[in-house]
């Protein structure tokens, strides 16, 4: 059986995921998305992986959510509060969601996952750090290059070419 912490975390995570998509204001939506990401970090703590949980808080709650919040602020005011969706697709979308949840859920519940138990101690985060600099170092270098490339690409994309350098200082 699940304990109370798990129950509270799942209510927080799933509830704020629905709120992030359904709240009228995009600003409140992005704050609700922050709740979802923080709830996932709580699940990581429950799963005895504090390193991933802190990484999640630093990267997702700390930077991505703030980045989304600032992008929302750049958008016109009436677009922030306008709900843009296909009313005809809404019922179909809810149906698709329910079919997916029931189908995948029944497959998972019928499978052998229900009996999986473990008594082994959790993985020490020092092992993850050691793995990063020994076995996974080419992937780490590649990831650093991809991140640098993505940041440079984002800067190049968002640069305004119709504004001259003199105007920018004003």
């Amino acid at each position: 059986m699940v304990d109370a912490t798990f129950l509270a975390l799942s209510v927080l995570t799933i509830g704020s995921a629905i709120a992030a998509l359904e709240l009228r204001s995009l600003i409140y939506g992005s704050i609700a998305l922050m709740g979802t990401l923080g709830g996932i970090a709580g699940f990581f703590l429950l799963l005895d992986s504090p390193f991933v949980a802190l990484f999640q808080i630093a990267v997702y709650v700390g930077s991505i959510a703030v980045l989304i919040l600032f992008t929302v602020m750049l958008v016109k005011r009436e677009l922030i509060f306008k709900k843009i969706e296909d009313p005809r697709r809404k019922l179909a979308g809810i149906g698709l969601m329910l079919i997916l949840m029931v189908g995948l859920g029944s497959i998972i519940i019928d499978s052998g996952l229900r009996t999986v138990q473990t008594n082994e101690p959790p993985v020490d985060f020092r092992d993850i750090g050691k793995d990063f600099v020994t076995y996974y170092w080419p992937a780490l270098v590649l990831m650093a290059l991809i991140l640098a490339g993505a940041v440079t690409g984002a800067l190049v994309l968002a640069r305004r070419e119709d504004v001259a350098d003199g105007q920018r200082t004003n």
Partner: protein
Amino acid sequence: MGNELIDFVIVSIALLGIGIYGLSVKRNAIRMLFSIEIIINAANLNLVAFARYIPNSGGQTLALFSIAIAAAEVAVGLSLIIVAYRMYQNIDIADFRSLKG
């Protein structure tokens, strides 16, 4: 510990369903990015949950890589949305139709 693997997997399936609902219904580009984030987080939750019950450090390492790549994806996606907003003055993806044949 009281929680079992299947509880985490069920939460992850619920998040995946909500994300797919958002991707299929919403036409707001920023909300679609929210849905993609929710789906990526469901996948990460699965990775860490299975890694706890195997137990193996590989799942946590893959989740860390996945979080970092998702950060890059969000940066590029948001700058694409800003460029499209500047061109069309709107964030409705049904209005982005200059590539439509």
